[in-house]
Structures are given as structure tokens and as C-alpha cells.
């Protein structure tokens, strides 16, 4: 696969039943390209959510290119690991990653949010493979991920379910209902990841409706909690490795992230939650990401 401005990365595309386990260097290269793809598609769409896509992209990249067992050619493979994007507004990050797996043609990314596109403003599981849940109404994805995890256990499959949540999203009560029930069912195959960028539409999460102490809350609900830098592939991979070894408890990876990460004028700026860059802003952003319009 040719990544403009970067070395060619090759990885098995056909029936990759084992996780890709790409190196940190390779992951960094892919996520950099994905950042450019995200900004390009948002500029083209002239709407969407850059802040939360950029805070989540390293986490999603690590899952698909390092941790998850899947076959990009076979969305129906029942033993695949599943990814549920509970924070549905971050979906440009998922579309970018799926394009780098060959699941979506890169050219299709420019159809984001357009009429008749498979790339809905928030993910639609009915029209796009590897989108495991239709989300965007916040607070529902973790329940769905739990249901998949329960079914996998009942079917005696070893697959696991990864669920990426926004931090503002966990203000929803339904999240805490699942926080209660997943440990009851000893779902060691459920790994929730909290994209803790501390931003939501109306301000910083700590001001709008403070969630701290987050790690203590989840621990008190009987989850295993690992707090990491969500932009360090070394730390992401290390936490995912630990989750693999859990025997009877679900894991929450508390990923400290920066909203708009990678673009200086977007970083931790609440105003970039749900506003697309214009052409000039896109160019400035791409220069910082050492890329050209792809």
C-alpha cells in the first residue's frame, strides 16, 4: 500500500486470521495518513466532527492494525473480533481506517455525508461492512458490545469485542447500567476504551458534567482499569496486551487524549468539536501533518 510521503507498508490482506500486529512505527505512519484522510473528508463534506475523530484515531488504528483478529475480505466471519464505535460522531476516523484496510475504496471517502453514500454522518451497520453497530445516539454502544460479548460466550467463541466510548457520552445513564452488568457476566472478552479528550459540545467535560474520578468509578463497578496516554502506541499496545490476559473481568482502558490531536490550532479547542475546516484551514493542517491532499 502506497502511503504518500511515507515508506510502503505491506501487510497480509487476504484472510488475515491472526491480528496484524504492526509495529509502532508502522502504526504511527498509518494514523498520520488517517489524520490527513479525516481532515480531507471533513473539508469536502463541510460538516462533521474533527476534534473527536483526531483524538480517537490512534486508538482505532492500534485496534485494527495491531490487536484485532479479522479478515478484511470476510465481514461475516463469525470468529472475528468486533469493534463498536459507541461515540458515533467519531466515525470519520473509522472510515479512514477501513479505507486503509481495503474495506472502503479511498476514493469513496469523499462521499462522506453525501446523499446515497454508505458513509453516513454517523455509522450505519446495515450499509457498511465491519460497522458492527449503528450509533450516534450516545450511550447505547456499550450495551450492544456487551450483547455481542455475551452471545460470543454462549456460542463458545474466543472472539473479543472492543468498544470505543466518548467521555461526554458516559454522562448517559445507560453506560452505567452496562458498567454494572458486564462484570456480573464476567465478560473478559469485552474491552471498553474511553477516549478521554475532556471535550464536548458545550465545553470541557470537567465543567459541563464532571466525571472524575473516572478510574475510581469504573474500578468500583468491578472493571479492570488501565490509564494510558491514548496517543502513545507503546502504551496502547501494552494496555491491550494486559486485557488479553484477563480471566473473568471486563477491561476499561482509560485513554487520556487530546481533542483535535495533531493539528495545533484544533488541539483542545472545543470550537472544533463539530465544525469542518475550510480549504485554507485544511492546507495549514495538512502542512502540520506533513502530507499533501490525497
Amino acid at each position, binding site marked *: 500500500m502506497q502511503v504518500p510521503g511515507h515508506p510502503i507498508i505491506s501487510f497480509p490482506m487476504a484472510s488475515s486470521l491472526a491480528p496484524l500486529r504492526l509495529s509502532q512505527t508502522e502504526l504511527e505512519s498509518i494514523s498520520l495518513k488517517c489524520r490527513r484522510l479525516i481532515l480531507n473528508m471533513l473539508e469536502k463534506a463541510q460538516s462533521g466532527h474533527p476534534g473527536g475523530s483526531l483524538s480517537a484515531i490512534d486508538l482505532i488504528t492500534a485496534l485494527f492494525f495491531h490487536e484485532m483478529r479479522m479478515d478484511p475480505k470476510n465481514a461475516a466471519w463469525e470468529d472475528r473480533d468486533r469493534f463498536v464505535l459507541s461515540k458515533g460522531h467519531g466515525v470519520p476516523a473509522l472510515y479512514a481506517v477501513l479505507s486503509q484496510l481495503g474495506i472502503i475504496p479511498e476514493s469513496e471517502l469523499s462521499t462522506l455525508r453525501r446523499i446515497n453514500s454508505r458513509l453516513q454522518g454517523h455509522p450505519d451497520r446495515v450499509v457498511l461492512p465491519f460497522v458492527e453497530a449503528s450509533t450516534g445516539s450516545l450511550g447505547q454502544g456499550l450495551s450492544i458490545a456487551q450483547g455481542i460479548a455475551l*452471545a460470543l460466550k454462549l456460542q463458545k467463541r474466543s472472539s473479543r469485542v472492543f468498544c470505543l466510548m466518548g467521555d461526554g457520552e458516559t454522562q448517559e445513564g445507560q453506560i452505567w447500567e452496562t458498567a454494572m452488568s458486564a462484570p456480573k457476566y464476567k465478560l473478559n472478552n469485552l474491552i471498553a476504551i474511553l477516549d478521554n479528550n475532556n471535550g464536548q459540545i458545550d465545553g470541557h467535560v470537567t465543567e459541563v458534567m464532571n466525571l472524575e474520578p473516572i478510574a475510581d468509578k469504573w474500578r468500583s463497578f468491578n472493571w479492570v482499569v488501565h490509564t494510558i496516554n491514548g496517543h502513545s502506541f507503546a502504551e496502547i499496545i501494552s494496555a491491550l496486551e494486559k486485557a488479553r490476559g484477563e480471566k473473568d473481568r471486563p477491561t476499561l482502558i482509560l485513554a487520556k487524549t487530546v481533542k483535535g490531536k495533531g493539528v495545533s490550532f484544533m488541539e483542545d479547542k472545543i470550537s472544533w468539536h463539530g465544525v469542518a475546516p475550510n480549504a485554507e484551514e485544511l492546507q495549514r493542517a495538512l502542512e502540520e501533518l506533513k502530507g499533501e491532499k490525497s
Partner: protein
Amino acid sequence: MGAKATRDSFGEAVRDLGKENPAIVVLDADLSVSTKSVTFAKSFPDRFFQMGIAEANMIGTAAGMAFSGLIPFCCSFGCFLTGKYETIRVSVGYSRANVKLVGTHAGLGIGEDGYTQMGLEDMNLMRGLPGMTVINPCDDKTTRAAVRFAVEHQGPVYLRLTRQKLPDLHASESDFKIGKGIVLKKGGKLALIGTGATVTEALQASEKLANYKPWVIDIHTIKPIDKDLLKTLAQECSQIVTVEDHNIVGGLGSAVAEVLSEVGFSGKLLRLGVQDTYGESGLPDELFEKYGFSAHQIAQKVIDWR
């Protein structure tokens, strides 16, 4: 003829079908003794999931199970289940999840517990979701058939059941065909249409209205509703009466009115049921009488109306 609460029929039917089909799982939110999902739980403890008093999480979990090939039945009182509308709207409806929602304790028929426990808007809410099949059976046999349909049908289903016993009106499960109303009595210019608990009230009212030779119809499938049968009634009748233990807004009466308007019905429609108000405590019979859809009230209102 016997009598049985349709929730009891459901518990037995889902247990019996569970023997044939290992994909069937049942979830409940601390009401398994009331919804009768406990009947399944006793036979298949490994396929029963007690989710506690947290209905939204139960519904979302059921959706995830459905995405993985299971056939989840998600049980609670109809009001508590459909009260989690946003979760049903997105996780089940929009997601085309093969989830079977079982809402018991339909309507004023629950009696003494009062309004907060009564499913009085549930059909309206579920009818508003594209792709949702809404079934409100009136007796044991049709309830069993509806549960079997739910298992075989690929797509979301809302099954509305009663706490109170209802007399047997149908002899065989084969009387039930999804989306097809059942003609209990063929008549003249007047038609009485019931659903669920009110079918038996309509039937009894028809005895009091024998002079008018009313049709009596069981509309068990609220969505998709039987347009063919309604078209026939529109042509044959000059007066059509709907009766439901539900708010008249958005339920059977509304569904019938929509079709009658479309086919150019030139007669009059009377919608009996809860007249866009809230319920209250009382004995079921007292409540049906007070809110105007006991057999006696149906007959009286039809006579006054004519």
C-alpha cells in the same frame, strides 16, 4: 372454553420453542415472575439473562445478541420497555436488529396498580418505527402463534400481552396469520373491531347489538394492519367502531382511520378506548366501564351514536 392471561401463554410458548431452537434467549429486567419469562428461565437457565432494573441496557444488549445470530426475547411491562424509546429507535429499529420485545401488562386491564404500570401508549410508540411488527393477541392460541411467528420472522417484533385472563376465542393456532385480521362474526352495516383484551368485549357487545347484525373482527396485528379486510369493511359497512385498551391516539383506532381514509370510506368511525387521558387504579371491569369500552359501554355508545 377456558381462559388464560396471554402473558402465561407467552411463557409456555417461548419455553416450548426454546426446546426446538437453541438460538432463542430471553432477557428480563427484574419482572420475570410477572412477564412469565420465568417459565423459560427455569427450563433454560443458561439462556436466560437477568438484567436487573435497567431496561435500556437490556434492550441494547439484546440488539448485540441479535447481531451475533441469537433470537433474543426482551421482556418487561409494555410501558417500561417502550419508555426506553430512543434505545429501541436506534439499537433495534434503525439497526434492523432481530429483537423480540415482549411488553406485558397492557392497558387498564392490569387494574389496581394504576397508571404508571399500564401500557397505554406502547402500540403508538412501536407503530411509529419502520419495520417493526406490532402484535396484540386476544387469547391463548393466537398468542402462541404470535410467539412462533416472532421466532421465525427476521426483524423486530413488539408483542403486547395482558396481565388479566382472557377467554379462548380461537380454536387453533392456525387461525392466526400475521397481518390478517380474523372475522369472528360476519355482519351487515355495522362493524366492531377489537384488539387484544377488547376483542372479547366487542364480541359480548355484539350480543347486545344483535338487531344491528354487527361484524366482529379481531385485529391482532396492528402493524402491518390488514388493509384488504378494512377495505372490505369500508365497502360493506356504514359504521365502524374500533375498541382498544390503549390511548385512541396512535393505536388501533388511528391505524384503522388511516386505512379507511385512504380507501375512501364514506361512513362514520367511532374510536373507543382511553380517550387521550391517563389511567388510574381500580378493578379491571370497573375501569373498562368507566373509560367506556366494557361490553356494556360499547353497546350503549353504539346505540347512542347511531
